[in-house]
């Protein structure tokens, strides 16, 4: 979701040219970089930023969907949604581990999320008002995430690429369960069909924003491309997503809420209407519909869970001391 993690990424680096050239040579030869390998500080910082914000997105992303677990319409839907939300938590954990290999601690990352210093994907600051939104999130949000994450499986940094391979395998179930929900609604009563259309209307544009703004000739972006942290521009990925998704909407008999959407024969791609980047920046900077609620929940859960973490550590310490004492007594 996740190229947003590169917004404002500072790839500046102080190493000498010989070091950078040798590093670039390895990257160009498609050699993976592993945690203890020499790497430019800018490469390390950019990855810590991107991977940790990706992890935060997975964890915060549990909230909008978790909102509907108790109200899922059938047991089948409930079991699937529960499994999906559990997967998102798991994805967060794979990603935090990958970031930790770069020398940042889990505690630091958590602090950055809770203090607002680190961001997460803008999409999770939108509310899930109806069951249709759960369908739209699986279909559109996870669909957009897959577009972003598939090229990340070839990211030059080994632990991130490996985590992405696991995530992508699981993500495909997410998108299919979302599309199935949309299909059921779209084939249902007039009211259900209207619910599906309304969810598409509200989630379409925020989903397109997930890819981040056009980079133009952004220096940061081209550095990330050269280091093979990302492989495609935001616009390229957005186009791929639109091209894949529009026919799926047509199959559902739903209308994509963009009057300017038109197939461009020459580009072999859809042209789309203007994206409201003011809205995007408002949401990124904290003024989306749910930013405060999301962080408030995350902070509350972190604080309320503190005693569990402390008790587990105290218990482990007690067991260790007893084992030690028993060993000494036996000697």
């Amino acid at each position, binding site marked *: 979701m996740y190229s947003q993690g590169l917004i404002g990424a500072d790839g500046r680096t102080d190493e000498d040219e010989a070091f950078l050239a040798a590093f670039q040579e390895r990257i160009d030869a498609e050699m993976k970089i592993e945690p203890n390998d020499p790497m430019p500080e800018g490469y390390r910082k950019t990855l810590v930023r991107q991977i940790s914000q990706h992890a935060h997105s997975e964890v915060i992303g549990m909230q909008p969907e978790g909102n509907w677990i108790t109200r899922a319409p059938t047991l089948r839907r409930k079991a699937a949604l529960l499994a999906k939300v559990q997967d998102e938590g*798991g994805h967060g954990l794979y990603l935090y581990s990958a970031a930790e290999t770069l020398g940042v601690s889990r505690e630091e990352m958590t602090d950055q999320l809770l203090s607002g210093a680190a961001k997460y994907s803008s999409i999770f600051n939108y509310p899930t008002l109806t069951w249709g939104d759960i369908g739209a999130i699986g279909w559109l949000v996870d669909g957009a995430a897959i577009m972003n994450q598939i090229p990340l499986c070839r990211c030059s940094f080994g632990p991130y690429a490996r985590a992405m391979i696991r995530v992508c395998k699981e993500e495909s179930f997410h998108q299919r369960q979302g599309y199935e929900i949309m299909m059921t609604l779209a084939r249902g009563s007039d009211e259900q069909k209207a619910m599906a259309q309304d969810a598409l209307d509200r989630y379409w544009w925020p989903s397109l924003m997930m890819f981040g703004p056009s980079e133009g000739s952004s220096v940061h972006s081209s550095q990330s491309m050269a280091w093979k942290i990302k492989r495609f521009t935001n616009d390229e990925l957005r186009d791929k997503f639109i091209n894949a998704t529009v026919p799926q909407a047509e199959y559902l008999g739903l209308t994509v809420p963009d009057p300017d959407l038109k197939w461009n024969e020459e580009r072999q791609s859809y042209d789309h209407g203007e994206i409201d980047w003011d809205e995007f920046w408002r949401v990124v900077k904290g003024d989306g519909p749910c930013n405060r609620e999301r962080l408030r929940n995350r902070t509350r859960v972190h604080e309320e869970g503190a005693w569990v*973490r402390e008790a587990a550590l105290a218990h482990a310490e007690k067991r260790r001391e007893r084992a030690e004492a028993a060993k000494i007594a036996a000697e």
Partner: protein
Amino acid sequence: MTETTPLWEVFIRARNGLNHKHAGSLHAADAELALQAARDVYTRRGEGQSIWVVRSSDIVASDPQDKDMMFEPTATKIYRHPTFYEIPDEVGNM
């Protein structure tokens, strides 16, 4: 109190007959919790029959800086490979 919870490396055997293979890492207070967390985080879709968890701090790793010293010498010892030896075709498969 912000005591850090120890880091563990997780190894999973997908099925009997295969090696345990590194799957990733996680934080847990003790071995029992590490095993439970490994089950939840790394085997949600039947990926494993058996799990090992090892404290990351107990792993001794070679230094990538020493890579050449450690591994380069084997590159020149081509006589360790079967293809180094020429056996006439008449002898058959060997």
